């Protein structure tokens, strides 16, 4: 096997083989190989958006599923995300030029007191990969910070993340403040993090709890579509 491996030349693979190989390389966190694959597909005339969805997001979806199923763990997922980032940095400027379809906009951040941002970073990347514009507020966000970002960015979605049982109640503080200001229903609120569960998400007044990054993307798409339907029904 090992001898064969060294002989693998990406540019000699046909499109289908190459994309399949890129799935594997993403899975193995091989950043340089992913960058090479993206460049080859660009040379072959693929639209940046097609490379993004078919090669990168397709590959990350497998990674996300295997993370969910306990086959991959955080170290592997971080490596895969890093490889994806390499591909994204080539595609991002091109996507902006070619005016790829915009799914919606999300403001995301880890709640006050919580610095654990692995999950949040993964969600950001997968959301971007799926065509959302993501404004990442980073870690340790107080309610004021979230509100300010909602005001200035006017996103469709607010995403909040917490890893600790001691910080997850803060999500409710943010949602309650949004209610007080009468702006809760202007946004889709998605929450996530290891100690949370669906019931908890509902009880604090979020629209949905997303158990992993792949679910977050699906849920976001679903809610944005519903929101658009509602708006056209009202109009």
């Amino acid at each position, binding site marked *: 096997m090992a001898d064969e491996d060294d002989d693998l030349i990406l540019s000699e693979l046909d499109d289908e083989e190459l994309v399949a190989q890129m799935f594997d390389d993403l899975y193995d966190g091989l950043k340089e190989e992913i960058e090479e694959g993206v460049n080859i597909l660009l040379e072959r005339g693929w639209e940046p958006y097609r490379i993004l969805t078919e090669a990168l997001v397709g590959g990350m979806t497998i990674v996300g599923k295997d993370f969910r199923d306990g086959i991959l763990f955080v170290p592997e997922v971080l490596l895969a995300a890093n490889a994806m980032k390499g591909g994204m940095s080539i595609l991002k400027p091109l996507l902006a030029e070619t005016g790829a379809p915009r799914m919606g906009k999300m403001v995301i951040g880890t*709640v006050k007191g919580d610095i654990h941002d692995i999950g949040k970073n993964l969600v950001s990347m997968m959301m971007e990969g799926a065509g959302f514009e993501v404004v990442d507020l980073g870690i340790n966000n107080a309610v004021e910070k979230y509100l300010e970002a909602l005001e200035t960015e006017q996103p469709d979605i607010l995403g909040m993340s917490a890893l600790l049982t001691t910080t997850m109640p803060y999500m409710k503080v943010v949602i309650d403040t949004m209610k007080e200001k009468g702006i809760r229903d202007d946004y889709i609120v998605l929450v996530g993090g290891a100690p949370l569960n669906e019931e908890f998400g509902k009880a604090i007044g979020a629209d949905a709890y997303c158990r992993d990054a792949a679910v977050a993307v699906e849920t976001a798409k679903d809610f944005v579509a519903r929101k658009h339907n509602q708006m056209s029904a009202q109009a």
Partner: protein
Amino acid sequence: MTDALSALLADRDWLLADGATGTTLFNMGLQSGEPPELWNLDHPDRIRALYSGAVEAGSDLFLTNSFGGNASRLKLHDSQDRVGELNRAAAGIGREVADASGRKVVVAGSVGPTGEIMAPMGSLTHESAVEMFHEQAEALKEGGADVLWLETISSPDEYKAAAEAFGLADMPWVGTMSFDTAGRTMMGVTSADMVKMVGKLAHPPLAFGANCGTGSSDLLRTVLGFAAAAPERPIVAKGNAGIPKYVDGHIHYNGTPELMADYAVMARDAGATIIGGCCGTTPEHLVLMREALETRPPGPAPTLEQVTAALGEFSSADDGTGETTGPTRQRRGRRRG
């Protein structure tokens, strides 16, 4: 000289540890997102009440309010310069409560994770992790902690860095990891992996084990996994009192005191020596846990079926140990992984 924990372990078949710190402090008015460690100086009376709650409920040891007391975590609240005073106070109050109890109670200086990802994947180097843990260790020692107590760790590298730091502080210690991701730690460590890792440390802990995670069933499966790997040192079981739910404006854990009493006995039968609770475990739970450990006779290790029948289903079908392996992806494998 023998440390206080080793002395107790030599005397007794099991020890009751404490319950939740965060849950109890929230009930005293801590606001979510605020660092509990500041209370060691701002509200020492409340911290005294926290410790006394465990001691009066019958705990043989309790953890200090210093879980987030390392520079990396305190930095979030611009308190990174206060590691020394906050940890000294955490242990100092503990010393007073333990000494006034009239029996042998161990003050365990709690040390939690830095929250950072270690190099090469993340930015935290081994050296700076050791430095942070060492700083906290020295302060807990000065404050009067009998042992140090590392908890909720997911990365083996971070566990090793803490072990090294505690060696520098010349302190005996205990260290538990959180197995919250399909029966493994977030970083993929299985119960068997941990036994192996602990066995190789230059400054090994007095006891090792599992805390927090996702409910008490999973935690017992992990304890059974430790026991199956024939560890050389005592096992710690500190499970959550069930699953967190939001009820009437408060976080509530669905594990009743009666269930936690069953959990405690099953943990002992599974091979744990130091048994306590984690998130959601109140003094009320601890009282019944103590009573159960004192009155119910030891029995054979519970089977996985008995664990789920008593405490609820596991969060995942498999925990990465044993003959049966979980789902694996059929990869094309044209390159070496």
